[in-house]
């Protein structure tokens, strides 16, 4: 308990130190267009919070980016599982996934703008970024399932449902959790980047774009802070849900098995 509170204090002190560095940097530069201090950013956030547009933008962007993430998560899981069962499908999907992983987000965004317009751009972009990550980790997780346990399951004629629940899911969850940690952050980064390029109405990306146009760095910092908070909350929620799928002690980091 004492160790925990010492650790928390340590973290708080480290954050305070970096805020001080930020304040000193803004004071040294002394130009609110290049960099604003923490107090100006907080003031900008304070002025944004009461407005309806602020909440509309958050709900709209959160809804679209999380929908893109969840759809890609479901598709990656389904395709990864199918690829594990059918090697032909895995071979067929391999070049597609490699392509999705290597194409720059900006190219995707411009193509998607042409194909789908700006309204649902962030759903598509967040999804395309997340899909290959979840697919690859689903395959890796299923391949890491303990072969000796699978032999045991075969000898005892365990049903497919029991094999999935007791052998495959515990093997898969650590891989999904570590890929989700990266994919969730990436979905927000790419989703907001897509909004900045597509500038859909009532979106966080639109607000960031406007901050750029009006050289309003304080608003830019305030919106960036909002994105970090929403992304962190969403990540915690998804990881908590995933960890509920295995009993305590059942999840190990990839490579433990």
């Amino acid at each position, binding site marked *: 308990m004492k160790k925990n509170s010492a650790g928390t204090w340590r973290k708080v002190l480290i954050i305070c130190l970096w805020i001080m560095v930020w304040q000193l940097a803004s004071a040294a530069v002394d130009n609110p267009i290049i960099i604003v201090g923490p107090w100006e950013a907080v003031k900008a956030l304070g002025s944004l919070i009461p407005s309806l547009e602020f909440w509309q933008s958050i709900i709209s962007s959160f809804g679209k980016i999380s929908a893109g993430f969840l759809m890609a998560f479901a598709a990656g899981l389904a395709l990864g599982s199918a690829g594990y069962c059918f090697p032909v499908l895995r071979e067929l999907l391999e070049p597609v996934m490699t392509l999705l992983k290597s194409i720059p987000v900006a190219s995707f965004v411009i193509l998607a703008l042409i194909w789908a317009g700006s309204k649902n751009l962030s759903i598509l972009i967040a999804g395309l970024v997340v899909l290959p990550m979840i697919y690859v980790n689903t395959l890796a997780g299923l391949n890491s399932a303990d072969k000796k346990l699978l032999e045991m399951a075969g*000898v005892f004629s365990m049903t497919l449902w029991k094999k999935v629940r007791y052998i495959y899911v515990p093997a898969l969850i650590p891989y999904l959790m570590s890929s989700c940690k990266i994919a969730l952050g990436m979905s927000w980064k790419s989703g907001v980047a897509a909004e900045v390029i597509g500038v859909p109405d009532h979106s966080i990306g639109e607000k960031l774009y406007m901050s750029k146009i009006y050289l309003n760095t304080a608003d830019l910092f305030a919106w960036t802070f909002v994105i970090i908070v929403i992304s962190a909350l969403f990540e915690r929620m998804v990881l908590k849900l995933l960890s509920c799928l295995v*009993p305590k002690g*059942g999840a190990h980091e990839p490579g433990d098995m």
Partner: protein
Amino acid sequence: MSLEICNLRKSFGDLKVLKGISLILEEGKIYCLMSPSGSGKTTLFRILLGLEQADEGEIKGIQGKRFGAVFQEDRLCEAYSPLDNVMMTADRCVTRKEAQRELCRLLPKESVTRPVYTLSGGMKRRTAICRALLASWDILIMDEPFTGLDDGTRQEVIHYIHEKTAGKLVLLSTHQMEDVEALGAKLITLQESSQ
């Protein structure tokens, strides 16, 4: 109905593990396989369980038979309790309550619902034995089932195996002559069974 193993051969590369094993195993009897380590006991068991293919030979009377097994390693789902592990493979007619009662005969009551990774090696072994005995099987294969058990526990487990396998075919491997006597089993050695 008996199980007849005829001239079974298996090699891994240049290493000849089974050199023409022939055995007749009768239903309702317990057979103890005693041979030095590395003589092919586990390979024979794996072939019987359908986990390896023999290079040559034939096994008669195996079609349609259900197997139960205690593997050389415990092969338990570590994050789940002994009760969950038993219920994963238990016969459909075995209820959770019955499984719990059976486990309590071999394990301390408080350990039955704890995750397996918190149990001692001996407790895990007894869980693996209980899991095999409560599954539905016609032939039971046990690869060194008494490893890690002290003398007192070993006697309890032998008594339990006796009770649960009555009238069925059991093939197990051990290194202790006392186990053969306590089980009232027929002793077989792989050297004698090889042609």
